[in-house]
């Protein structure tokens, strides 16, 4: 498949190769740059969604709603103790009042309102696995027998709309990658046709001297594949710099969901492969375009 890369120099001179001299490498560079950014966004969202979903789908929050603080604290301790005995539960943590104050601080400020507002006691529960609806229902019934005001809220419920939104963005990103691949293919077709038109006379001569379609198309494949690879590497370098800068900014934000938006090593590997895929796409498109055009002549 890659035999065209080892075409002897004298054959290469038949169709002159001007590195970076035409628009083709730069068009490919822009396409690959956009593809790298879009793919990075899609992959980062996939990772973030996966991390957040895995983390939250096996977590639940138990609220003890009771106006009397002493009763509330006692019920919270009893509920926590009961939870620790369950095989479904892996970890139980009763949130201290300071942490609850910190949670409501963005809405109520730093004033000490805990005495005036009956805040529920919160128990963070990490489950051994993702619980079913029936298991949550059973857990609610059991805990309400200890604390009538107990509510069990699966954490996945809070994040579901966000996950749905992120999933939409993710599909949009991968859709855009597909559209960019189509646009790249279209650019290669135009470039191959333009090169064919430029070298019509040379092709006709080689053809009449007994050159096969394969011999002729290899010349164009090599030229276009090298243009695509060169453009792809430029696009990848530009895209990688932007991703690196954005990653730095996201790390600085330090917020839970945003912080999990990042690329792991296999995401980087996929991104690094994009120029190769671009070259492969260009090579196949060029071959189909050139052989299609050659078949129209005898």
């Amino acid at each position, binding site marked *: 498949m890659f035999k065209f890369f080892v075409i002897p120099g*004298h054959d290469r*001179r038949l169709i002159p190769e001007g590195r970076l001299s035409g628009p083709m490498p730069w068009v490919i560079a822009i396409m690959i740059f956009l593809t790298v950014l879009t793919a990075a966004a899609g992959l980062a969202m996939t990772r973030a969604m996966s991390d957040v979903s895995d983390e939250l789908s096996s977590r639940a929050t138990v609220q003890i709603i009771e106006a009397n603080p002493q009763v509330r604290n006692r019920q919270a301790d009893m509920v926590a103790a009961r939870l620790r005995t369950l095989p479904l539960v892996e970890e139980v943590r009763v949130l201290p009042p300071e942490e609850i104050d910190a949670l409501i601080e963005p809405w109520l400020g730093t004033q000490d309102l805990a005495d005036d507002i009956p805040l529920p006691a919160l128990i963070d529960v990490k489950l051994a696995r993702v619980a079913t609806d029936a298991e949550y229902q059973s857990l609610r019934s059991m805990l309400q027998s200890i604390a009538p005001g107990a509510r069990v809220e699966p954490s996945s419920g809070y994040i579901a709309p966000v996950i749905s939104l992120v999933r939409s963005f993710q599909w949009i990103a991968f859709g855009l990658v597909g559209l960019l691949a189509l646009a790249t293919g279209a650019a290669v077709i135009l470039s191959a046709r333009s090169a064919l038109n430029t070298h019509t006379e040379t092709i006709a001569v080689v053809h*009449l*001297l*007994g050159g*096969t379609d394969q011999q002729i198309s290899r010349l164009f494949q090599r030229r276009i594949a090298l243009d695509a690879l060169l453009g792809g590497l430029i696009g990848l370098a530009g895209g990688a710099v932007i991703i690196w800068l954005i990653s730095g900014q996201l790390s600085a934000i330090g917020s839970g969901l945003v912080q999990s938006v990042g690329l792991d090593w296999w995401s980087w590997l996929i991104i690094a492969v994009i120029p190769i895929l671009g070259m492969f796409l260009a090579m196949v498109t060029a071959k189909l375009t050139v052989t299609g055009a050659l*078949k129209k002549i005898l």
Partner: protein
Amino acid sequence: MDEIVRFDNVGLRYGAGAETLADLNFTLYPGSFYFLTGASGAGKTSLLKLLYLSQRPSRGVIRLFGEDAVTMPRERLPGFRRRIGVVFQDFRLVPHLSAFDNIALPLRVAGVREKDLETPVTEMLEWVGLGDRASARPATLSGGEQQRVAIARAVIGRPEILVADEPTGNVDPEMAIRLLQLFEALNTLGTTIVVATHDIHLLSKIPGAQMMRLEKGMLADPTGSLRHPPLPHDQTQ
């Protein structure tokens, strides 16, 4: 004698117009020399295009090297084209290749190794008097020099048939005779030569040559010689 080319009721029409070539019936034999003459527009170049497989006829049967060239699958045509040398009227040299590379082109297309083509190409350049212009590009060559490169490219692969369209049109009489001698030498080695020309003086230079005359797309064959094997070249001298 085996036939190398046979035309039976061949006609050629471009688009919806009248037939450019009509009712061509002739046979070419291996090792023979043919001159194709006729007024401008008589269809000489069209007939040569049919011979060097650049065009399929609109009707009739063409047998080339014993096979039907009209219905031959396209994939097999390159192999047949490599057995035919062509000198185009407009030379059709590759402008960005040197004289050496232009002449070496048929050998490279045929897959000859680089070390095996240096000697024959250099010898051919010497033969056509361009030994010192090996690295010159066509644009820097005169019309006559370009024509000699075109001829050298056509004969370098020792084709079984050589088809030449006005091969001496741009060279001086002395060079014209030298080129004809080259054709004749190839002919004595067994190559069938078909030369389309306006130059009636050339016809007398090859005594054993047959003449094909086209008139308004039809072949005038006053002697009927094209229907019968010509005498071997050496018996005509």
